[in-house]
């Protein structure tokens, strides 16, 4: 993070690349999660693979965690710099709505909501996983003779309207974050040409569909256990 990150453009490219990486992760995460609605067995198998494969656990997972932390830390650093750039006296009237979307101007807010959500999400899933696997040493993925993943997932949402609600709320903010962030990343790495219009449509669709999909999964598990 030393030399190259010194310049504003390098920082924004780093922000874009880490963001794009997280978008890819989201897509992968979603693909696995949606199977929990379609086929609990597939969900269990894939989850077990992801949870025990050395490459995924030893290499991809640290990269992902680094990516998440980097994206957040960098985001905060940039935000602080950007606020300083306005100077000691700010505008008394700043009509951002005249020239830009709310989403683009409030990436910090949507980002913080997502960060808080990640805390909850880690508390719900990641910490128990790590505890089971690496502290208790149980790498089997089994509970009472069956894969435990599906049950554990469903259990979180069943009969818990508050958790489900919080998840859905976070996904709404994820939509906000992605609506600007996904297409913005391409601009940052210098991709702006005749394909940009089509790409923008795709990123917008992705930004809405994937988080809604996540929300659907949470609601599905809640509703199906009412």
């Amino acid at each position: 993070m030393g030399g190259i990150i010194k310049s504003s453009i390098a920082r924004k490219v780093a922000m874009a690349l880490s963001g794009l990486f997280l978008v890819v992760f989201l897509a992968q995460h979603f693909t696995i999660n949606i199977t929990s609605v379609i086929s609990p067995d597939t969900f269990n198998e894939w989850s077990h693979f992801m949870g025990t494969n050395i490459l995924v656990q030893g290499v991809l997972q640290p990269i992902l965690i680094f990516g998440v932390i980097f994206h957040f830390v960098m985001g905060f650093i940039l935000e602080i710099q950007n606020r300083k750039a306005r100077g000691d006296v700010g505008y008394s009237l700043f009509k951002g709505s005249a020239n830009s979307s709310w989403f683009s101007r409030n990436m910090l807010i949507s980002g913080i909501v997502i960060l808080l959500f990640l805390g909850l999400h880690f508390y719900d899933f990641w910490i128990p996983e790590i505890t089971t696997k690496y502290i208790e040493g149980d790498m089997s993925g089994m509970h009472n003779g069956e894969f435990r993943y599906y049950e554990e997932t469903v259990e979180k949402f069943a009969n818990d309207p508050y958790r489900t609600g919080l998840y859905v709320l976070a996904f709404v903010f994820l939509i906000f974050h992605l609506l600007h962030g996904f297409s913005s990343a391409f601009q940052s790495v210098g991709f702006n040409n005749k394909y940009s219009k089509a790409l923008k449509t795709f990123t917008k669709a992705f930004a809405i569909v994937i988080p809604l999909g996540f929300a659907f999964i949470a609601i599905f598990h809640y509703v199906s256990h009412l």
Partner: protein
Amino acid sequence: MKLTLKIWRQENSNTKGRFETYNVDKVEGDMSFLEMLDVLNDGLVREGKEPVEFDHDCREGICGTCSLQINGEPHGPGNRVTTCQLHMRSFKDGDTIVIEPFRARAFPIVKDLIVDRSAFDRIQQAGGFISVNTSGNTIDANSTPIEKEKADMSFDAATCIGCGACVAACKNASAMLFTSAKVSQFALLPQGEVEASERVMHMVDQMDKEGFGNCTNTGACEIECPKGISLENIARMNREYLSASVAG
């Protein structure tokens, strides 16, 4: 029409500023915004007060001297217009108009509504040129044909008037649109290609040193730019910078 103006007054860069409220009447729709301020100042001088200082010169939208954040927008409401070409018919009788200087750490206030935009000059000085001497023996202008489309794109980038509205509109006070316009103008021409890498590195360096913020692609700059300089230029500068970084 009659208007209420809330105007930022500040004696110089070392003193604190404040808003003052003024009333002007006899404003006509055909007047430009700056002519409306002339009317205000004429009244102030007659009352023995110091007039409100603001930057202006050509008053035909090309020199880039005029600025002003009007009701929260650089160069006021409407797009593709400078303050000097903004006419009072855009306002209604009885309106209150808030007039502030462009705000950015890199644009310190000189007096009242005047800011110091010399940071822009320093960015240009860092590399916004093609190193060719005036010899009178340069090659014939037509010996290097340039694709019309590229020449036109270069021209579009070159129409930047350096007013600073992009910085003023940006929530991060970023100068990317300004810097990228110059980088693009030259990067698109064969004459400028030779020094392209060095140019973009130096100009971006200087831009950062001046204390402008980072670009977060909100696109506010493009909308508020009186000359409609496109965001494509920022993407191009990012590309140029990346390839220069990788190569260099």
